[in-house]
Every structure is written in C-alpha cells, then in structure tokens.
C-alpha cells in the first residue's frame, strides 16, 4: 500500500493574491525578511496498490487530469509507504 503526497502551487509566472496578502500580514507583524509567500494545496491520496511504478504513473495522470490545472498550477508528488 502506498500513499501519494501531492503539492499543487500556482505557477511562478502567476500572481498569487492570497500569498501577497499573507506576506503583507507577516510584514505587519515585523517579519521584514519575508520576500514572498506562495500558497498551495496539500493532498494525501491513499492508493490500493502494491506496484510503486504503476502508482507513480497513475498519480501523474491524476494530477494532469484533475488535481492540478496546468494552465495556472504546478504540481509535484512523492509516493510513500502508506
């Protein structure tokens, strides 16, 4: 059994209004060293499979089809023992 840990973030070229608002808030709190904040999504996908390479292939497909919108988002994932 494996688990996919999926991270989806806005592409670098895309403005992140939420991240900007959080950055401003951190500055207000005195954390002046904060240059940028990017907000993304974290997903855990439990997989009923014993085949690691097949899991990787299918999770990539899931990301492309549904979990991320590649027009505006990047994704990366790790497959871990679940």
């Amino acid at each position, binding site marked *: 059994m494996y688990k996919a840990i999926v991270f989806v973030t*806005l592409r670098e*070229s*895309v*403005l992140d*209004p*939420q991240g900007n*608002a959080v950055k401003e808030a951190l500055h207000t709190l005195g954390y002046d060293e904060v240059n940028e904040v990017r907000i993304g999504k974290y997903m855990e996908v439990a997989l009923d499979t014993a085949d690691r390479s097949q899991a990787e292939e299918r999770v990539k497909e899931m990301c492309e089809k*549904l979990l991320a919108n590649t*027009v*505006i988002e990047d994704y990366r994932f790790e497959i871990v023992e679940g």
Partner: protein
Amino acid sequence: MKVGVIVFPGSNADVDMRYAVEDIMAVPVDYVWHSTTDLSGYDVILLPGGFSYGDYLRCGAVARFSPVMEQVVKAAAEGKLVMGVCNGFQILLEAGLLPGAMLRNKTLKYRCKLSRLRVVNNETPFTRDYAAGEVIDIPIAHGEGNYYCDEATLAKLKANNQIVFRYEGENPNGSIDDIAGICNERGNVLGMMPHPERAVHTWMTSDDGKRVFTSILHTWREKNGVTAQA
C-alpha cells in the same frame, strides 16, 4: 427551438437563467440534470452560475467530469450554441472548451455589484443585437473571476476577436486585459463572468443583458430560416 439549462449539484442561477429564457426568448426551456447523457433534443445549452460541487478543489474542476459534459463538448463540436455564465464559464474553461483559467479575485473579495462592460465583439451569435463598442451594465457575483491566460493565448484571443466583453472603468477582479467574456475560435461557445440573465428587466436595475438572449434567438432563427413571430 429548445433550450437546455444544465443543473449541477450546487448550481444556483439556474432558475434565473430559465426565467430569462422564458421571458425574453419565449421558447421551451428545460432544466437538464448533470447526469443526463443525451442533449440531442436541445438547440442551445446554457451553463448557469453557482457553486457546482461546492467549488471543491477548483471552481468547475469536478463539474467538468459530470456525464453531461461529454455531451456539452459534443454539442459544441456540432456547432450548437453553448453559453456558460460565471460558474458555467469556469466549467467551460476546466473542460477546455475555452482557453485559460480562473484565479481568485485580485482583491481577494467576493464582488457582487453592477459592472460596466464594453461589447468588444458584436459579431458573435450572442452579441449581434448590441452595437459595436457599446457600453452596458450587467451584474457580477463572484470570488474567482480573475481570468488568466498566457501571453501567447492572449495574443491569439485578440487576433481572432475572441474577446467578447471587457470591463469598462473598474476591473473588479484583476482579469488579464480586463477580460469579462470570451468565445471559442468558431464563435459558438461563450463564457462570461457577468450575469446577463440577472439584467433582463428594468426593475432589475438594468435590462442590458436582454440582448444576449435576443441575439441567440435571432441567430437560431436566421440559421433555421424561421421568421419572427408576432
């Protein structure tokens, strides 16, 4: 002529859409549930606003895989008129029927107000009853209407006259090039964030949205050689 208003779990502007069709176009209109697998009986398909599937993951991301969407793609390929408003626009983007994607409004605020638009392209089946460059008032109600596409796509949209509406004056969401509505290359699929169905009577503050519906009707009549009835 028959109009289908697609209803997803979480749609909430379906009733407004239906009344607008009945009041302005005076043609038969059905609610069509998202699980439907046959749209062959409909000439015009409308995707209403709302929060389909709770807008979970991304707006329109889950609705796009509803059984009915395969049929919407098919209808668009057949040249039928397909219009998505607000959440309907987001679904058309996720489905790839229109290019680009939606981001959270730049201000992070949900904007619910009358917005001023310019009719950039009045040669589409949805805007033929407007004058070129006409300025109209149509309400918006969205938190994620910040239309985004890359530079190459934007250049293509401009070159093909696919930008149908732009915000005039204040851009309420930060969309690229002030875009409020776009169509596909062929011109038979329109997506727009403002709600024309909520501006079809003067008591609604504006009736500037009316002509989206009359345009659709006139396009259909012309295509099918039907003369206007009294």
